[in-house]
C-alpha cells in the first residue's frame, strides 16, 4: 500500500486488541458455557411461546431517562480499529487495492473518520437520486498520488434491477489499477455484491477487524467510559454487586459479563457498546453510597416482533445490505409490500432508528436481527 501522509505509524504488536484478518477466517468470540445454556433455554422458551420474566420488572431498578438519549447517539469511535487501519496503510507489502469488510451497524462512519484524520482523499458515492436515474453512468477516480479511500460501497448501488450500474462502473475503474485504494463495505453489502456483481473477483481476499475479545472489550470500555458518562459513575453488576471494571489478582475480570458481551455482540465493538448501554439501570431509591452507581443487569435475549415475520425480516435485510435507506427508497428495494406500518413497528421496538429520514438497524438490536435472519434462512454475511 502506498504510504499516505501519516504521522501515526505504529507497528503491529501482539497485544493490539484489533488486527485486520482474512474475512473468510473470522470466528466470533466463544460463549461462556453457562451463558450459552441460558441462551438456548431462553430461545427454547420463546419457541414454546413462554416468555421469561424480563429483568426490567425488578421494581428496585429503572432505566435512567438520559440513557435513552445516549442510546440514540453514536458509540465512541473505536480507536483500536482506527489503529489497525493505520498499520495497514503503513504496510508496504499491501496490494494497491484492498477491501476492508466492516462489521455491520457501524454508527461512526469509521473509514470516513480514519481517512479524515490522515488527510486521505475520499471518493463520495453518487447522489442517492442518481442511482436509479435513467442516465448514462460513468465513474472517474480522482487523480492523485496518495491512497484513495472509498469509505462505503453501500452508497454505490440499490438492490434494484436498475441500481447496479454505478457499482459496476466503479469496479471497472478500480480494476484498471490506476490508483491505490482502500475500499470499505459492510459484511452484508459484501455478501450481496459477491452475488450480484462478483466483487470478489476484482477485490479478492477482503480483510476485516478481528472480533473484540473479553479483555480487549473491557480495556476499550475502561478507556472510553470516562469520555461518555455524563458524570463520574460507578458501574456495578446487579446480580453480584461487583465492580464491572475490577480485575482479580490474575488481572482478569472476576465475572463473565465481558465474555458474554463479546460473544453476544459477535465481537463487534459498536454492537457491544450499544448492548451494554441497553443493560444499564439506576436505583429508584438510591442510598448515599450508590447515588452515582449505574447497575448493569443481565444481557437480555431479545427477539424480533411478530415472531420474526418475513416482512420484518425483508426490511431488516435490505437495511443491512444498504447500511441506511430513506423510507421512500426502501419500497424500491423490497418486493411488492407497503413498509410504512412495519417500519413504525420496528422503530418503536428499537430494532431500527431514523436519522434525517434515513432508516438504519440499531446496533444494539443487531444480534437479534442476525439470529432472526439466520433462522428464516436468509443469505448470511461472513461476520458471525
Amino acid at each position, binding site marked *: 500500500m502506498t504510504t499516505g501522509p501519516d504521522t501515526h505509524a505504529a507497528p503491529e504488536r501482539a497485544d493490539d486488541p484489533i488486527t485486520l484478518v482474512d474475512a473468510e477466517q473470522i470466528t466470533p468470540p466463544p460463549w461462556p458455557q453457562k451463558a450459552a445454556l441460558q441462551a438456548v433455554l431462553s430461545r427454547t422458551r420463546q419457541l414454546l411461546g413462554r416468555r421469561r420474566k424480563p429483568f426490567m420488572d425488578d421494581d428496585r431498578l429503572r432505566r435512567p431517562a438520559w440513557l435513552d438519549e445516549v442510546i440514540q447517539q453514536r458509540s465512541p469511535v473505536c480507536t483500536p480499529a482506527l489503529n489497525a487501519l493505520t498499520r495497514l496503510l503503513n504496510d508496504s507489502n499491501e496490494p494497491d487495492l484492498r477491501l476492508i469488510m466492516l462489521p455491520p451497524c457501524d454508527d461512526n462512519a469509521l473509514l470516513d473518520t480514519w481517512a479524515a484524520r490522515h488527510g486521505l482523499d475520499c471518493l463520495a458515492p453518487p447522489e442517492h437520486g442518481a442511482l436509479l436515474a435513467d442516465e448514462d453512468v460513468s465513474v472517474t477516480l480522482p487523480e492523485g498520488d496518495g491512497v484513495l479511500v472509498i469509505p462505503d460501497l453501500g452508497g454505490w448501488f440499490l*438492490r434494484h*434491477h436498475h441500481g*447496479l450500474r454505478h457499482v459496476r462502473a466503479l469496479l471497472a475503474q478500480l480494476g484498471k489499477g490506476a490508483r491505490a485504494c482502500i475500499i470499505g463495505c459492510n459484511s452484508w453489502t459484501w455478501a450481496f455484491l459477491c452475488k450480484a456483481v462478483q466483487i470478489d473477483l476484482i477485490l479478492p481476499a477482503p480483510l476485516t477487524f478481528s472480533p473484540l475479545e473479553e479483555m480487549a472489550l473491557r480495556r476499550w470500555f475502561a478507556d472510553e467510559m470516562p469520555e461518555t458518562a455524563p458524570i463520574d459513575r460507578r458501574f456495578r453488576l446487579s446480580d453480584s454487586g461487583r465492580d464491572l471494571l475490577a480485575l482479580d489478582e490474575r488481572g482478569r475480570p472476576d465475572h463473565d459479563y465481558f465474555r458474554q458481551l463479546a460473544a453476544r455482540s459477535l465481537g463487534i465493538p459498536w454492537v457491544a457498546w450499544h448492548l451494554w448501554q441497553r443493560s444499564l439501570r439506576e436505583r429508584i431509591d438510591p442510598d448515599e453510597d450508590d447515588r452515582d452507581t449505574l447497575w448493569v443487569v443481565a444481557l437480555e435475549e431479545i427477539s424480533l416482533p411478530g415472531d420474526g415475520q418475513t416482512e420484518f425480516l425483508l426490511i431488516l435485510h435490505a437495511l443491512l445490505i444498504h447500511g441506511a435507506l430513506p423510507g421512500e427508497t426502501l419500497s424500491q428495494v423490497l418486493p411488492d409490500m407497503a413498509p410504512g406500518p412495519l417500519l413504525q413497528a420496528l422503530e418503536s421496538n428499537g430494532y431500527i432508528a431514523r436519522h434525517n429520514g434515513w432508516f438504519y438497524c440499531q446496533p444494539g438490536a443487531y444480534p437479534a436481527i442476525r439470529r432472526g435472519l439466520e433462522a*428464516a*434462512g436468509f443469505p448470511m454475511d461472513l461476520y458471525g
Partner: protein
Amino acid sequence: MSESAEQGAQLVRDLQNIDFVEIALILVGTWLAIMVVRHTLPWLAERGPSQTRLILMGAVPVFRLLALIVAIVWITPLVIRVTLENFLVIAGAASVAIGFAFKDYVSSLIAGVVALFEKPWRPGDWVTVGDHYGEVQSVGMRALTLRTLHDDIITVPLLKLWDSNIVNANDGARTLMCVVDFYLHPDHDTAQMPQALKDVALTSAWLGYDRPVAVFVEQTRVGTHYELRAYPFEMRDQGPFRSDMTLRGKAAIRALGGMEISAPAAAG
C-alpha cells in the same frame, strides 16, 4: 384333542396365558407416541430454524415405521408361539387375506416403506404427482397429503409410487429452481436484455445466494423466449419469488424498449 386343534393351540398361546392388558398398553403407547411425534415435530419444524425444518418433518414417517416395528416385535411373542412352522402358517393365512381383501391397503403400506428408502418424496419436499404440485405436508400409512400453492390439500395414495412419475422439485434440498418465462417481440436490444433480466433475479429480496442465476434465450415461432432461472433462499417463498421476478422483469423489459407478446400456447 384332534391334530388341527393341537396345531392351533401350538400356534396361538392359551387365552389365559395372553396378557391382554400388556398388549393394550403397548398398542396405546405406540399410538400415543406416534401421535405425539406426528404433531410435535411438524409444530417445531414450523417454529424452529428453517435449517432444521426438513429434518424434523422427515423424521415423522421414520419414527412411525420404527414404532410400529417395535410394537409388532413386542406383541407377536405375547400372542403367538414363535417358530418357523408357525411363521409359515401365519404368512400363508395373511397372504390369502391380503390377496382378497386388503391388497391396495397393503400395497400402499409397502409403497410407504419403499418410499422411506427410495425417497421419491419426503415431508417438506415440493413434488408433482399426476397433475398436482404441492408441498408434502405429511406421509401417512396409506396416503400422503400435498398442500398446493393455492392452499388446497390433496390426498395422494402411496400406491402412485408404483405406476406414476413423481417429480420432486427440491429432492431434500432447502431450495428449488424457479423459472419465469418472457416472450418478447424479436425486435429488441438482445445485447442488454439477458443481463437486465439476470439483474432482476440478482436484486430480488427472495434470492438465495448459493445457487446460480441463469437466463436462457431461444427464438421461437412467435417471438424471443427468455427463461429466467433462479433459486429462492427458502422454497416456500417460491410464489412471491416468481411473482417478484415477473413484475420486475416486465418493468425491466419496458425500460429497455422491449415488448412482450402472447405466449405460444395463447397464440395458438
